[in-house]
């Protein structure tokens, strides 16, 4: 997918006329705007783009894009998209899903799409709650979270979506934030350019049922303290000028966060998302098991691996001759 300098299309070309139905202040609005704003860059005609979504507030996304769209059933987005990608290699296919949709009911389809490296881009809107069903714990809700379904606190430990994806051999894994239009665009760009499956986790605020879940990364004073921005080829350092911190290779082999001042240069991690071995990317994902402190955002992994079914002949309808020959295959005999 080549991105072009002077896009043929404008944001308006990607805005459907369906009335958006999210709650006031929902992070989904920002994501929608960012995606619609980014689309023209692809230089792909809207009719060659498909958004497939599951069920949830996030799932409504596909109605608002003026592309082809399929609002599927809960958790099956990646599977529906796998079918579409298998059937059509001429489309730009995007999946929009939520943390419940992708990681609870749909967890299996997600990890299988990732291992197969199906050519689809998966946008995971993670608000750490079930929005559409009005506020139950999700697989990314923190342990002890009190919700309608867990009045005494959830007793499940949450998934770290980036770790899970890396464990499933994902070839592209990134993370961004609803509030950061520019950063989101960067990730969308990289995901679109990736030949196989790209998973982009987007931290999304749900003001109604889980407001402020990402304040540690979004509100002005904390953002600078906690956002660990992964920049290709750069040392992994973060924090305000007066108190810069660095991510270094610790003694035992784990990554550690230390004051930049006191850090041993040679041990500071330099970010390289293209390493074949996902171990370091995984280690980075473990810096924060939950986005309540210093948390990496950006592209964790971006490597090449054969794309699903690139090695088989393209889908086609057999010719009349082929059909004729096929029917007459095997031992035949003729009765006069």
């Amino acid at each position, binding site marked *: 997918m080549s991105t072009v300098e002077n896009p043929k299309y404008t944001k308006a070309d990607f805005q459907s006329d369906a009335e958006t139905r999210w709650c006031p202040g929902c992070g989904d609005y920002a994501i929608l705007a960012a995606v619609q704003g980014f689309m023209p860059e692809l230089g792909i005609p809207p009719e060659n783009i498909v958004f*497939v979504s599951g069920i949830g507030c996030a799932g409504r996304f596909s109605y608002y894009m003026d592309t*082809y*769209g399929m609002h599927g059933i809960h958790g099956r987005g990646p*599977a529906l998209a*796998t079918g*579409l990608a298998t059937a059509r290699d001429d489309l730009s296919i995007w999946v929009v899903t939520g943390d419940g949709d992708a990681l609870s009911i749909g967890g299996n389809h997600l990890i*299988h799409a990732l291992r197969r490296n199906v050519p689809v881009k998966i946008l995971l809107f993670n608000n750490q709650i079930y929005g559409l069903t009005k506020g139950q714990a999700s697989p990314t809700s923190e342990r002890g979270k009190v919700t309608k379904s867990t009045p005494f606190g959830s007793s499940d430990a949450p998934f770290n979506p980036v770790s899970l994806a890396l464990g499933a051999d994902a070839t592209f894994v990134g993370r961004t934030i609803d509030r950061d239009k520019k950063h989101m665009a960067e990730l969308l760009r990289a995901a679109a350019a990736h030949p196989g499956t790209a998973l982009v986790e987007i931290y999304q605020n749900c003001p109604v049922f889980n407001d402020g879940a990402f304040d540690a990364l979004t509100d002005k004073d904390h953002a600078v303290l906690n956002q660990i921005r992964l920049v290709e080829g750069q040392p992994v350092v973060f924090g305000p000028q007066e108190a810069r911190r660095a991510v270094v290779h610790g003694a035992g082999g784990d990554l550690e966060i230390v004051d930049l001042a006191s850090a041993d240069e040679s041990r500071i991690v330099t970010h390289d998302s293209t390493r074949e071995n996902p171990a370091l990317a995984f280690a980075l994902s473990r810096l924060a098991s939950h986005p309540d402190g210093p948390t990496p955002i950006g592209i964790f992994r971006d490597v090449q691996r054969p794309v699903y079914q690139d090695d088989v002949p393209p889908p086609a309808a057999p010719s009349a001759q082929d059909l004729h020959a096929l029917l007459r295959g095997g031992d035949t005999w003729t009765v006069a």
Partner: protein
Amino acid sequence: MSTVEGPPKRTEVHERVVVRFAGDSGDGMQLAGDRFTAATAAFGNDLATLPDFPAEIRAPAGTIGGVSAFQIHFAARDILTPGDKPNVLIAMNPAALRANIALMERGTTILLNEDAFTVRAVQKAGYEVNPLEDGSLDAFNVKRVPMTTLTQAAVEALEGVTTRDAQKSRNVFALGLISWLYDRPLDISQAWIEQKFAKKPQIAAANVAALKAGWSFGETSELIDVQVTVPAATDVPPGTYRNVNGTTTTALGLVAASSRSGLPLVLGAYPITPASELLHELSRHAKLGVRTVQAEDEIAAASIALGASFGGRLGVTSTSGPGMDLKTETIGLAVMLELPMVIIDVQRAGPSTGLPTKTEQGDLLQELYGRHGESPIPVVAASTPGQCFEAAYEAARIAVRYRTPVILLTDLFLANSSEPWKIPDPDDLPPIDPRFRTTAPADDDVFLPYSRDDDLARQWAVPGTPGLQHRIGGLEKAELTGAISYEGPNHARMTEVRNAKVAGIEVPDVEVHGDDDATLLVLGWGSSRGAIRAGARRARESGGRVATAHLHHLNPLPANLGDVLRSYDRVLLPEMNCGQLAMVLRAKYLVDVESYSRVEGRPLFAPEIEQAILERQS
């Protein structure tokens, strides 16, 4: 064995014969059966075959659980079933004998491998005493053939042939022997062997030697005093034939639909017995453009098919019972999206995991009513191995024409059993036209994806078509626009439209066969067709009067069905379930349809149908 000319043999002419090959899973009985079938088909008999695999992967060698059998019924006239009672049983070991003896009637012939009846083997098979010694086989015409020794003798001479190779060609010895017994030409089998083992000449040589040894043993040994000929069938319509099982024809029917419609075929499937074979078969056609995906589960398999359909392809998914349960929700989505999709259920026996290697028709009501909400779906059922081709093609045709998921019902019996199939000319098949919407609406009006034609089929615009971008999903849709609608009256109208569309599908009237003066109608569906026809034929031969009819469309039902049912005093409906179709017909037509129900994991047999008919002669 004596190599000098044997004694002159009697020859008898029979109209029909049933032969059953039985041995250990490792003995290659399926192959022997296949080859005998090929020779018999080429010879010009009509035939039907049925393999009978052990339920276990590979139970310990020599045990009952490990016995594998293959039955062929061939005749000088058209036949309808793989037969019930064998005339000849080939038993390669004691377990094979013990597992199959119950099928044999007194006076029938048993050819057994004498060498295999060692003390250990006899015990392993679960016999107290050696059946060859306790007279328990007196009622049968038993031929003890030292197959192992003879095969050994025949091949040991050859260059670089191991005892193991010899062991492995025992089945071919049996094939040779039975070929002589029924006067089948050897050349076809020999040619096949030589081609199959082209890369391993000594194996080929060993097998050919064993084949000939079997033949000449028949020719020369006193043991075998009679040769049987079954004249070629004369009532066979002219044409080119091949011997096919229902799995192959189902695959061919789908590929034909793909070719004729111009829609590339995409199969999403997850392995399950007995449906896996269809996945295997279609996977081999990748070079023709068929795409198969072995999904992570049946939910994904169905979703993959539906995703492909959304992309403007022929999306197909295949499975058996437990897998159907899992596809339910996705099929419901397809109903709402009104996209073409073919779902194939190769039925197996029992609820839950049940009896994976036995046959049944227990999924009909699930296909008709197994989804939440009002969710109508056309259902097509195949009736014979050959007819699976038409049925699969018809399912695809309806799916595309009416933009709807269609369920095709076959079963384990159809999938595995085979019969000669007259190869159709693709050009004679009804056309399938996707009728994609390709033109964008005029500037000032909008595309209405849920506007419909006279068949109530909605407009199908696929990704890549400029100006027709639209969004569809599982929430109730507004008429015409397909936008989300929570309006009650709209929901009522859409429910009505979905029902009317399926109810309005054109299906051919049901045809009645048999005696005009009959007061009893035997109605069937699915794989019981052969048994019902044969049973009726036999009943007539013994003076019964009966009419038969068979349904290939279970939803909607043929328009004339109600009148047909009402025009008989009694309607008998044999099913391999507890009366599922009977209940549907009783509800719809208020006719007292009588159910003949068998759930023994086996196909229906002609004799039981014959008896049921004769018992109901008024």
